């Protein structure tokens, strides 16, 4: 059991009273092995939510729990794919992925096997000894994803993980993530600006308001995915053409647009 629970989470940066209220009462419960995507306007506090689950930040009030325990600090059980990759520039691709596994005490043979598996999966074969600065942004992002997957964490926290990828690679990664999460489901908190990506990947899509952020609405995708049999289509573009998909997309877009409208006013 490794669900995530936000209870009345408030986060104020700066001094209480004069500070900036970033999150104002976030309530969200993510079940064990559930895939939840968060969408919302830029600056609404999505990354902040994720950082609290990761253990890098704490709520000013309210609580963030994983597995019914208040998050105390970071752990390899809650792997993060950072918005800015955060690879170690002095380690090559192989060592970047290996580092967390060594810390965890994964035996050498298994370590090699797992790393080889994810290097292949992410299309990084042949780049094992390359340093991050020798890779394109998209490739660095794939290394960051491989590093998180290889940890085999119970909770996966992904902050716009496909943002730096080109359209084709992004699609490959999205389909791969779907495949992975069907084969080996785990609890995923996924932040994105892509409404389609959110619907395609997630069991539920949480929409946030503009700052101060709250969860405005939660769209339950999974029942529709199951009843409309989305998974029988291997390709994302086929799923995106389905009327049920288009309907959800329009709904979420409208909801987001209301937020943008208020922000611009």
């Amino acid at each position, binding site marked *: 059991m490794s669900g995530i629970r936000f209870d009345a989470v408030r986060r104020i940066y700066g001094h209480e009273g004069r500070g900036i209220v970033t999150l104002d009462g976030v309530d969200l419960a993510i079940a064990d092995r559930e895939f939840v995507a968060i969408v919302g306007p830029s600056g609404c506090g999505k990354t902040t939510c994720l950082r609290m689950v990761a253990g890098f930040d704490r709520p000013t009030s309210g609580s963030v729990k994983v597995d019914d325990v208040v998050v105390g600090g970071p*752990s*390899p059980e809650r792997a993060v794919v950072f918005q800015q990759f955060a690879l170690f520039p002095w380690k090559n691709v192989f060592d970047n992925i290996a580092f967390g596994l060594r*810390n965890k005490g994964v035996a050498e043979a298994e370590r090699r096997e797992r790393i080889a598996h994810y290097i292949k999966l992410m299309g990084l074969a042949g780049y094992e000894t390359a340093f991050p600065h020798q890779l394109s942004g998209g490739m660095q992002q794939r290394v960051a994803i491989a590093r998180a997957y290889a940890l085999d964490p119970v909770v996966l926290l992904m902050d716009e993980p496909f943002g730096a990828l080109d359209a084709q690679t992004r699609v490959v990664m999205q389909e791969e993530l779907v495949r992975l999460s069907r084969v080996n489901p785990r609890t995923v908190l996924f932040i994105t600006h892509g409404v389609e990506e959110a619907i395609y990947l997630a069991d539920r899509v949480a929409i946030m308001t503009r700052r101060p952020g709250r969860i405005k609405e939660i769209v339950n995708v999974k029942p529709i995915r199951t009843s409309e049999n989305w998974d029988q289509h291997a390709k994302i573009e086929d799923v995106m053409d389905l009327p049920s998909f288009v309907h959800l997309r329009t709904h979420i877009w409208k909801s987001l647009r209301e937020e943008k409208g208020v922000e611009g006013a």
Partner: protein
Amino acid sequence: MSRRSLIGLATVGALLVLWYVLTMVTGTINTGRFPSPDDVWVAAGQIVAKGYANGRLHIHILHSLKLVAMGFLFAISVGVPLGLLMGWSRRAEALINPIFLVIRPIPPLAWIPLAILWLGLGDAAKIMVIFFAAFVPAVINTYTGVRNIATPIIEAARMLGTPRLALVSEVLVPAAMPSIFTGLRLALQASWTTLVAAELVGAVAGLGRILNVAQQDLYPGMILFAMIWVAILGWSTTKLLAIAEQRALPWVQVRG
């Protein structure tokens, strides 16, 4: 050879020719004040073969090298760990930084009288002065190197469950390494500057000793010859450090 080094070589060559012409052909420069290439050549022959100021050239060179090496190595082996500690621990920083604020504005050469008072005119005093000169840049650059590590790097390390020891050896030190090397380079330069100054004040051997004696002897050829050797040693030790840096940091993106 690269285009850059060819241009560099051409510049140096042109300066040498100019030097030769102004001193030995036109006589524009009075060789009593600034030596001709010939004077330097004579001085070189004398000190290499017979010796000058208590010893032959290699004795002086080895003596100076030894002092620089000891002062520099002593300074960085204390300075770099101290910088790491200050960079990592707020408490260590709070404790040690005030000492630095006091020491830092004192020019290294201002330590010479105190060093001589404590340790006499021997090698120990010179090593101490070099130590003070090299220590400050070593500490400061290591410290800022650790301080400036990007937050996501530290967070990634924590997320990956890095144990304390590995956090220092596999994350903090490599991340700060480019800055540490900057510190080492400044420390080395400071070591040479300070060495020559300390030897000028009083020494039994060394390049500064040659300079000092040659000045009293009104011997410009020998003065310039010793200066050239200070430059050669400073340049080659800096070059060695640069090679070590390239070896140690294959992951740093080189500019240009």
